[in-house]
């Protein structure tokens, strides 16, 4: 390493940027991988039911399954539009 390197910030190297981007995308994709296959359809059907009563957009319903040792929790978040 050159002595000039001491004046450069180690954080800004492109390899570090690559590593941070990878850590984020890989964690995200692993999270999705563990979700059951039926989830996208469940989300669509829930959306359809809610739309009978309230007009919401696609991204306002979030469905996730959290697995613990003893049980799984289906977590449903619906954001209603402001009046």
């Amino acid at each position, binding site marked *: 390493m*050159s002595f000039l390197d001491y004046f450069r910030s180690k954080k800004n190297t492109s390899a570090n940027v690559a590593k941070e981007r990878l850590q984020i995308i890989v964690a995200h994709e692993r999270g999705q991988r563990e979700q059951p296959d039926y989830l996208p359809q469940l989300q669509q059907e829930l959306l359809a039911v809610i739309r009978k009563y309230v007009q919401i957009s696609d991204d306002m319903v979030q469905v996730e399954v959290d697995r613990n040792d003893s049980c799984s929790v289906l977590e449903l978040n619906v954001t209603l539009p402001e009046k």
Partner: protein
Amino acid sequence: MARIIVVTSGKGGVGKTTTSASISTGLAKRGHKTVVIDFDVGLRNLDLIMNCERRVVYDFVNVIQGEATLNQALIRDKRVESLYILPASQTREKEALTKEGVEKVINELSDTFDYIVCDSPAGIEHGALMALYYADEAIVVTNPEVSSVRDSDRILGILQSKSRRAEMGQDPVREHLLLTRYNPDRVEKGEMLSVADVEEILAIPLLGVIPESQVVLNSSNQGMPVILEEQSDAGQAYDDAVGRLLGEEREHRFMTAQKKGFFSRMFKGG
């Protein structure tokens, strides 16, 4: 019972076929009876890398469909004893590989071989799934580059859910990371992901690091598995990897940049 090893990656062009050729050659050189199967139906290339492209008469699909026997299709390597190649079909569609057909061939090979190395096609389609389905172990070939690392993680997910071992609830497929085209100089400059970075992201045991080397292209030009270039860094790195695969303790080499002189270090700015 043979050990079935798939060489896979998700991404294309990272060195799967180069690795399949060298790992299988290395295993056979140590006296283990080894067969390497090309699963890339329609885009066969292992034959070229192994220098037997003009000796292909029958292929994997011919055997599955009963048009040839296994012995007719297996090509015996001319350099290394106890090494055989089962080439892919160049003409058929990929669906010609069925689970039952592949199982039949692998079972028959298991009776007489110690190692079955499956060279997977790129992607996560049918051919790649067939190559990894029966695996006991997987060598995940990865370049220190964002798209390759991401695709490797995807393949690891598939190994953990779609392989026979996963479907049957058996012990999981043993995973090995093989980092190829590694350039220690660029890593030192912060231009390339380091071994430690890739290990941290993928979180699987490291089988080896193959340095980026001109020898790889030179040897593929001649149909010579790199591992036979015994004086070269890449050849030695593959030999180390084979040793580790067989349970030997080998120190990792070729992972640090060549030391430069005092003046070039001072003035070249790293």
